[in-house]
C-alpha cells in the first residue's frame, strides 16, 4: 500500500463504511417499506393540516416537509386556544385537523381523554418506547426548560443567581419579571420537590416583597428597556430569540429545571389520515430534530444527547420532566399557589 491514491481510497472507503454503520443505526428502527406505503396513500390525499401553539413551532414544517415528501400540501395554523375548538368541532362531526402539536398535559391529555387521538406510526418510524406517551397515542418532540433569563447589561456576573431562592435577596427587589401564565406553573413544578409551606413562602415573597412584575406583554421589551433585569421562569429558547432580536441576554440553569414536554399526535378522524400519519412520523425523524434545533427546540429527555441536554446535566440541576403521571399533582399544586399570585389569596 505504498501508492498515495490507494491510501486515500482506503481511508475514504473506511470512512464511508463507518458513516454507513452510523446512518444505518439511525435509520435502523424505521420500516422504510411501510413508510413508503403510507406516503403513496398520503400523496393521493394531497394535503395535511397541522395545528400547533405558535407559529415558530410550525414554520420549519411548512418549509421542509415537502423536501422529504413532495406532492403533499402543508397547511398550518397556530393558536394557543385550539383545544375547545377541536372538541367542539368533533362534537359537531367536523374534523378539520390531521396532526396536533402541543404540550402533553395542557393540550394532548384532554383530547386523549375524549378519544380524539389515533395511535401514531411510531413503530414504523422507529420512535423508542420511552418517547411514546399516552398509550402510544403521542410522541415526544422537544422540551422547554424553565431557567432565569437576564439582561447582561443590567446584571453583573457576580449577581447571577444559582438557585431560585437566591432571587429572594433584597438586591432583586423591583428588578424581576415573569409571566402571569408561566410563573404559577413554575410554582406547581417546585411543589413536586419542595413542601407546600416552602413554595407558599417563596410565592408570597416574590409577589409581595420582591414585587415581581407579571405583565401580560412581551418580556423582551421590559428586559431590553431595563425596566426589569431578569425573568424568573422563562425558557432557554426564548433567551436565544431575545438575543437574535438584539437584547443582550443569557440564561442560567437553577437548582431545579422544570421541563414541559411538547408532543405530536394524529387525530382520530383526520380528514387526511395517511398524510397525518406521515407528518406525525416525519416530526420524529432526525431531519425534523435537526430543524427544531435550529429553532432552539431541543429534546431534554434522559436518553437525549442534544447540546442543551448535556449543558443542563453538566449544570448539576435537578430536572423535572413533564409527564402525564405528574400532571395530576401539578394541577393540584397550581390551585394552591395561583391564587396567591393572582391576589385571590393572601
Amino acid at each position, binding site marked *: 500500500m505504498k501508492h498515495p491514491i490507494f491510501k486515500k481510497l482506503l481511508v475514504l472507503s473506511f470512512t464511508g463504511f463507518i458513516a454507513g454503520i452510523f446512518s444505518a443505526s439511525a435509520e435502523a428502527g424505521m420500516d422504510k417499506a411501510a413508510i413508503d406505503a403510507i406516503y403513496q396513500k398520503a400523496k393521493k390525499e394531497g394535503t395535511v393540516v397541522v395545528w400547533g401553539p*405558535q*407559529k*415558530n413551532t410550525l414554520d420549519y414544517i411548512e418549509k421542509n416537509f415537502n423536501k422529504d415528501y413532495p406532492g403533499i400540501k402543508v*397547511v398550518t*395554523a*397556530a*393558536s*394557543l*386556544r385550539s*383545544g*375547545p*375548538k377541536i*372538541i*367542539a*368541532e368533533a*362534537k*359537531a362531526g*367536523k374534523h*378539520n385537523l390531521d396532526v396536533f402539536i402541543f404540550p402533553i*398535559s*395542557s*393540550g394532548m*391529555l*384532554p383530547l386523549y381523554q375524549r378519544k380524539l387521538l389515533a395511535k401514531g406510526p411510531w413503530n414504523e418510524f422507529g420512535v423508542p418506547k420511552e418517547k411514546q406517551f399516552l398509550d402510544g397515542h403521542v410522541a415526544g418532540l422537544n422540551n422547554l426548560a424553565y431557567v432565569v433569563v437576564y439582561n447582561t447589561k443590567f446584571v453583573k456576573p457576580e449577581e447571577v443567581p444559582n438557585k431560585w431562592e437566591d432571587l429572594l435577596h433584597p438586591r432583586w427587589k*423591583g428588578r424581576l419579571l415573569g409571566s*402571569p*401564565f408561566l410563573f404559577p406553573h413554575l410554582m406547581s413544578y417546585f411543589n413536586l420537590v419542595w413542601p407546600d409551606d416552602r413554595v407558599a413562602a417563596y410565592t408570597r415573597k416574590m*409577589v*409581595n416583597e420582591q*414585587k*415581581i*412584575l*407579571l*405583565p*401580560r*406583554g*412581551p418580556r*423582551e*421589551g*421590559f428586559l*431590553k*428597556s*431595563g*425596566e*426589569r433585569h431578569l425573568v424568573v421562569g422563562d425558557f432557554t429558547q*426564548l433567551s436565544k*430569540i431575545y438575543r437574535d*432580536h*438584539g*437584547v443582550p441576554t443569557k440564561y442560567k440553569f437553577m437548582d431545579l429545571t422544570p421541563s414541559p414536554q411538547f408532543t405530536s399526535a394524529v387525530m382520530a378522524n383526520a380528514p387526511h389520515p395517511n398524510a397525518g400519519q406521515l407528518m406525525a412520523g416525519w416530526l420524529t425523524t432526525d431531519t425534523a430534530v435537526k430543524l427544531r434545533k435550529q429553532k432552539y427546540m431541543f429534546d431534554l429527555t434522559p436518553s437525549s444527547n442534544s447540546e442543551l441536554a448535556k449543558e443542563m446535566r453538566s449544570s448539576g440541576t435537578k430536572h423535572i420532566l413533564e409527564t402525564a403521571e405528574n*400532571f395530576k399533582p*401539578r*394541577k393540584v399544586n*397550581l390551585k394552591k399557589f*395561583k391564587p396567591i399570585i*393572582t*391576589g*385571590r*389569596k*393572601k
Partner: protein
Amino acid sequence: MTAIAVLFPGRWAGDLGVRGVLVLGAAVVAALYFISAPLFTMVLSAFRGPEDMLPFEDAAEWTLGHFAEVYINPVLYQEIIPQTFIFAFGAVTVAFLIAFTLAWLVERTDLPGRNVIFTLILFPLLVPTMMLGIAWVFMFGPNAGWINQAIRFLFGMEGGGPFNIFSMTGLIFAQGAALVPFVFLLLAAALRSMNPSLEEASAASGASPMTTFFRITLPILRPGILAPLILAFLVAMEQFELPLIVGLPARINVFSIRIFFELSPDTELPVYGRAAALALPFLFIGILLLLAYNHMIRRADNFVTVTGKGYRPERFRLGKWKWPSLLFVAVFLAFAAILPALVLLWTSFFGFNPPSYNALANMSFKPYIELFQEERFYKAIGNTFIVAGGSAIVVTLIGAMLAWILVRTKMPGRVILDFVSFFSIGIPSVIAGLAAMLLYLSLPIGVYGTVWVLILAYSYRFAVTTRLNRAGLMQLHKELEEASYAAGGTWITTVRRIVLPLMGPSLLACLVLLFIIGFREFTIPLILMSEDNMVLSVILWRLFENLELSKAAAVGVLIILFVIPIIFLMRRILLPKTE
C-alpha cells in the same frame, strides 16, 4: 291593522303600515337572535361543570360549583370588590371630565382644526389595549420609562420615578385615557344635536354662562350624558387588559383579572363556566344602572332640542380661551394618543430599542416588506373591512330601529327588549365567540369558517347603539315625524328621509365605534379562525405571540392608517353640512 294596533298601541299604529311593522319586527327578531346565543351560553355555562369539562359536552353536569369557587372568598369582599369600584369610578371620572371638555370644544366652539382633532382623539381606540398598556409602561415605568428618564436627566434626579405607572393612580389615569375616545364619541353626538336656542334664551335673560351650563345645558343633555357614563362604567368594570399589565404588578386586584386567568389555558381547558360565573354580576349591575337611567330620563319631552322650527347650531367663540383650550387638547392628545401611536410606530421600525440618535441607524423596513409580501395579509385586509363594516352597519341599523320602538311606541315587552339589548355589554367576547362557534357548527347554513360567521358573531353589541340612538332620538321632537305623516309620507319614508338624517351624529358615533371595535376585535376571530376568514387583528395577535413584535407593531400602525380615512369619510357623509 288590528294586529298592528295590538303590537304598537297608540296613535302611531296607523302610521306604521305593514311594511313598517315588518321592518321593526325583523329588527326585533334579529336583535333577539344575535344576542340570545351569547347570553344563553353565558348563563348556561355558569351552571355547567366540572372545570375539566367544557359546558357543551355531554359529560358536563349542572353545578353551583363555579359560584362557590368564585364568591365564597373573603378576599373578594375585603379587597377585590372595593378596588374594582375605586378603579372603575376613578377611570370613569377621569374619562368623563376629559371627554366632556373635548366634546364641548370640538362640537360647540370655534376651536381650530376640529375635524383633525376629532380623528386624533379616537387614536387610543385604534391601538389594541394591550399595546396601549405596554406603551404606557415604556413611557412611565418607574425604572426605565422614557418620560421618567427624560425628567430625571433634565432635573438631575437619581433613583426611580418620578412617575410610577404601577400604582392605582397610574392605572386609573391609563384606563381613563383609554376610555376617553369611547366617551367622547358618545358625548360629541349628543352635543352636536343640541339646539342652542335654549342656551341663547338663557343668556338673553341675563344668566351667566355657568348658570346656563348647569341649569339648562346639563339637564337637557341628561340622556346623552348618562348613556356614556353607564356604558363607560360597565366597560371599565370588565376591562382586564390594563389591570393585567399595569395593575397586577402593583398588586391591584380587580374583578375582571380573574376572567382572564380562567380563560387562559391553565392545565387543560379554559374554564368557561367560572368565567361566566364571574361575568354574570355585570349583567345585574347593568340592570340596576339601566333602571336608574330609565328613571332619570322618564320624561322624554324634557330632552327635545330638535324641532320642526329650523335652527342653526352656533358655535361659541373661545376668544382668549382659544390657546388654553388648544393646550388642553394638545396635552391630552400628546399623552393619550400621539405618544402611544409613536411608540407603536417606533417599535415597528426599531423594535424595543429606546429612542435615541444612535438607534436611528438600526431603522428597518423589513417588518413592512415581509407583511406586504404575504398573500394572506391582503386577504386579511379585505376580510377585516368586510367584517368590521358589515357588522357595524347591521348593529347600527338594528339599534336605531330598537331605539325607535323604545322611544316612540308602547309596544308590550319593549322594556324587556331594552334590558336584553343592554345585556350585550356584560358578555365577554370569548363567551360570544364560543356561542357563535357552537351555534354555527350545528346550524346547517354553511357559514362556519367564512367571513359571514364573523359578521354574525360580532353583531351582538346592541348596548351602545340602542343607548346612543335612543338618546339621539329623544332629542328629536315627534312633530317632525307627524308632519311627514300628515303630508302623506309612509313610516319607512319618514324614517329614511327625516329621522335617520337627523340622527346622523348618533348614527355616526355608533358606526365609527363599532367599526373600530370590529377592526381590533381579536378574541372572536381567534376562536372562529380558518384560512378563509383571517383578519388583521388575528395576524397581529399571532405575530405578538410568536415574538415578532416589530411586525405586530407594523400591523398595528397599518390598522390606524386604514381606519383614519374611514372616520373622515363617515363624518363627511353622515353629518349635516351646517358650517
